[in-house]
């Protein structure tokens, strides 16, 4: 048995119901309440692919999972301890992931014949004994809510909507929490409508009180105040997408630049478009272009004119940007390109997560076209890598690709708010009167001379340039030199980046687990647990995929067994073997879902020949 049991300081709750049931709101509020107690949290919202699926259907189920820990938690959890199912479809779709003996909170009012049929149940699971292996808390939440809010005198529709606050209250009670934080939020959120504040607060309190008066057994008091596993400091909750937006704005600030974000909507990259569109006050211009090609074109034009161009998309849109990326590279202009990866190929699984654009990012352009590629590991890391992307782009005068994914964009965690004053400024070397393609001997970067700069007019473009003058050149030796220069410029960034450090363990261990991107939480948890079991497992997590960290080859060489884990068919494994010509083992998963901690542990044990 792989999973920490209930009572080991962490709890996994999943809220599930119709898209219209306010599941995401309930989840977010519960998260806030949990984090506020000093607990560590990690969340995973899971929306249906449809915009607004018909009520009661299985494909219309919206879910929100959260792991709450009085110890460090790094994933939303492999298995669910408490499942809140607001209708039969939600139960049908999510029961699989509930642990044996786990708690089910169900709204019995929603288990009508019609809904049962829609969900594919022949009989009500609340009554037929099929849930005997679980602790079932079946309540008529609808009715209980209606009664609770009656004094507020709201319309039936608003009363119905208050059901999610009743549920929230109940789950807060089950987990040892109180309603203060959530009540304050309601008061603020609905302040324009006193009646709604009244109704929702009543529902919230009633749900909480119900747990108490009905003497329901608490599941695990993770929300009771107690020591926090997190270092001291000021915290907020942050999603990967929001952290990225803040990181971009902060990076631009550190470089004393304004941003132009050119983008075209696409799931899951749209959250950046939406997020940045609200940050106009901070020197950000957001431009929704006619397509992905124009989006990167607008960003590149902005960089040419001296602002920092940024563009973001997902797989299909990234593919469309390929040609223009080549131009940015040839024109040696800074640009940040964010790829929020999703399941593919083609349209694939737009709402599901995957890490399968790595090779496209590193190698997928016509001709020899190297550029830096970074990947963010966690929401807070997204903030840092956004700054890093800007730093490298400006330093080397190059487009930089930053990889995130659908899971990371939506995941949230507590974030120790950074102190802006403590962040290092990003240097922008002055162009002086250098020639347009005069390359700095250290960084090999040409000067950034924005169009319009007095006295330095020149002409650039996608035809091969003469090193130095920037004139068009078809000369064989120059092409050789420029090609080598383009490679060296990216390769040298490895010197501007810290050496790769171990997340866990060291060269004395028996196996090295290597990952990148949003699998960080699962990998780190797995390695932690395995080490806790006494296995000698070391761990690296790559944030720089191109160039690879300068000591990486040596680190890999120190191990007989290297296991590369990723959500694709082995792309980093291919890249590492390609660069270092040493065999690595590969753990892959392409199911539109993050790794479970258990699958990683099993594989590592198998590699080590150890029984679970």
């Amino acid at each position, binding site marked *: 048995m792989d999973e920490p049991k209930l009572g080991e300081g962490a709890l996994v709750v999943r809220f599930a119901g119709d898209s219209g049931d306010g599941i995401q709101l309930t989840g977010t509020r519960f998260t*806030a309440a949990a984090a*506020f107690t000093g607990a560590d949290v990690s969340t995973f919202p899971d929306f249906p692919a449809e915009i607004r699926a018909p009520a009661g259907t299985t494909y219309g189920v919206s879910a929100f999972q959260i792991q709450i820990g009085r110890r460090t938690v790094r994933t939303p959890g492999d298995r669910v301890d408490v499942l809140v199912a607001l209708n039969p479809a939600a139960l049908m779709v999510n029961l699989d992931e509930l642990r044996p003996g786990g708690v089910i909170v169900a709204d019995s009012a929603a288990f009508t014949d019609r809904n049962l049929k829609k969900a594919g149940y022949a009989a009500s699971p609340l009554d037929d004994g099929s849930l005997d292996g679980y602790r079932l808390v079946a309540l008529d939440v609808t009715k209980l809510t209606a009664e609770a809010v009656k004094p507020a005198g709201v319309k039936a529709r608003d009363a119905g909507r208050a059901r999610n606050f009743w549920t929230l209250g109940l789950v807060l009670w089950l987990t040892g929490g109180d309603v203060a934080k959530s009540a304050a939020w309601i008061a603020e959120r609905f302040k324009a409508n006193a009646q709604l504040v009244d109704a929702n607060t009543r529902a919230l309190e009633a749900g909480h009180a119900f747990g108490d008066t009905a003497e329901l057994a608490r599941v695990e008091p993770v929300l009771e105040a107690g020591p926090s596993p997190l270092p001291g400091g*000021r*915290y*907020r*909750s942050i999603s990967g997408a929001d952290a990225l937006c*803040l990181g971009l704005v*902060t990076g631009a*600030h550190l470089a004393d630049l*304004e941003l*132009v974000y*050119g983008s075209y909507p696409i799931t899951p990259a749209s959250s950046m478009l939406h997020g940045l569109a609200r940050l*106009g*006050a*901070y020197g950000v*211009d957001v*431009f929704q*272009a*006619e397509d992905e*090609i*124009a989006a990167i*074109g*607008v960003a*590149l*034009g*902005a960089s*040419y*004119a*001296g*602002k920092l*161009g940024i563009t973001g998309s997902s797989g299909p849109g990234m593919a469309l940007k390929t040609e*223009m990326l*080549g131009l940015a590279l040839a*024109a040696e202009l800074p640009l940040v390109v964010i790829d929020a990866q999703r399941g593919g190929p083609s349209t694939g699984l737009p709402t599901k997560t995957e890490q399968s654009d790595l090779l496209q990012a590193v190698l997928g352009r016509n001709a020899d076209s190297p550029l830096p590629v970074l990947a963010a590991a966690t929401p807070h890391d997204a903030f840092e890598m956004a700054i890093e992307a800007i730093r490298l782009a400006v330093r080397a005068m190059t487009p930089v690709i930053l990889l995130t994914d659908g899971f990371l964009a939506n995941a949230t965690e507590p974030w120790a*708010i950074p102190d*802006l*004053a403590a962040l290092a400024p990003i240097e922008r070397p002055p162009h002086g009167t250098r*020639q*347009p393609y005069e390359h700095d001997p250290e960084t090999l970067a040409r000067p950034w001379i*924005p*169009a*319009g*700069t*007095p*006295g330095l*007019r*020149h*002409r650039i*473009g*996608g*035809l091969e340039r003469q090193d130095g*003058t*920037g*004139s*068009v*050149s*078809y*000369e*064989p030796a*120059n092409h050789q030199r420029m090609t080598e220069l383009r490679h060296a410029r990216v390769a040298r960034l490895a010197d501007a980046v810290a050496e790769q450090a171990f997340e866990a363990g060291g060269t004395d261990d028996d196996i090295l687990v290597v990952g990148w991107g949003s699998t960080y939480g699962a990998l780190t948890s797995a390695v932690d647990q395995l080490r806790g079991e006494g296995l000698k497992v070391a761990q690296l997590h790559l944030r720089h995929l191109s160039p690879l960290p300068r000591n990486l080859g040596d680190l890999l060489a120190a191990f007989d067994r290297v296991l590369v884990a990723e959500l694709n068919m082995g792309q980093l494994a291919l890249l590492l073997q390609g660069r270092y010509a040493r065999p690595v083992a590969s753990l892959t998963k392409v199911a539109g879902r993050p790794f479970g901690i258990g699958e990683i542990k099993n594989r590592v044990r198998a590699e080590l020949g150890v029984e679970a």
Partner: protein
Amino acid sequence: MSDTLDQAVPAAPERSASPRTAKDYASDMEVRWCPGCGDYAILKAVQKTLAELEADPDRTVFLSGIGCAARFPYYVDTYGFHTIHGRAAAIATGVKLAQPELDVWVVSGDGDSLSIGGNHLLHLLRRNVDLVYLLFNNEVYGLTKGQASPTSPVGQVTPSTPGGSLDAPVHAGRYVLGCGGTFFARVPDVAQAQQVEVMKAAHAHAGTGFVEILQNCIVYHDGAWSTVTDKKTAAERQLWCRHGEPLRFGEGGAKALRLNAAALTLEAFTPGVDGEAAEVLVHDAGNPMLARLLCELDEPTALGVIHRRDAAVSERRHHAARPPQRREPAALQELLNGSDTWRI
């Protein structure tokens, strides 16, 4: 050596102090179009226009896609960006968004603009980005050696259409107006003086000043516009449109246009012979419907500023819509803090 197009060494700043002649806008690069190409005349006209506008070369940017026409930026001593095929409009939009005060010119061929680049052109026009857009329409792909272009007439024999081009061409003027373009002018490459006049008007226009230049590719489609430009027939074939003036053409302006209200078409007639002088239409560049009728006329061919109307300019709207800026560190720190925080 032979393989390098020399780039001017950065011009000394004093060079940019109000130059006055076309030559002041010539870069040091050797012009490499085919001898006899219509592009030479256009280059001269543009340089002359810049001189007459007393354009500041440092604040002027030429952007282009790919094609013979697209080599243009190398030959003007301003900022220049020779980008990729069909995408100059998008990149220019980014330039204007970042620095609205720059004087931006886009140079593009019929393939670049109307084949691969048609979508960006549509959106540039509907947004009405404030720049001058020069379409060198030679009805052929010059740089790739003579294939049919989207403006090639049906029947044009090319390496890609050995049996003659089959599909109905894109009509540049009709397309521009269909995209909501706010300025459309047309001028032949050989009409030096009028080119300057028209380009100045395009430059003065707040928004996208789109100029279709009837350009001759002497190598792959020689004589494409000769029926319009031939000295012998020019008077009969060229209808120069000037806002507020009667739409007259022919020797001594003997002929004119009138409206056939029943058919909703324009008709050529000879006032005093087959109609009254009072029927002569007066050009109203601001009337979109007249612009459409005019731009589609074939005999005579309408030239000059066919359409011009005022409309909001994209990058200005974007800048106007910017919220008050909060660029001080404290404001950013506040943003990082967010509204819902706790201490551990």
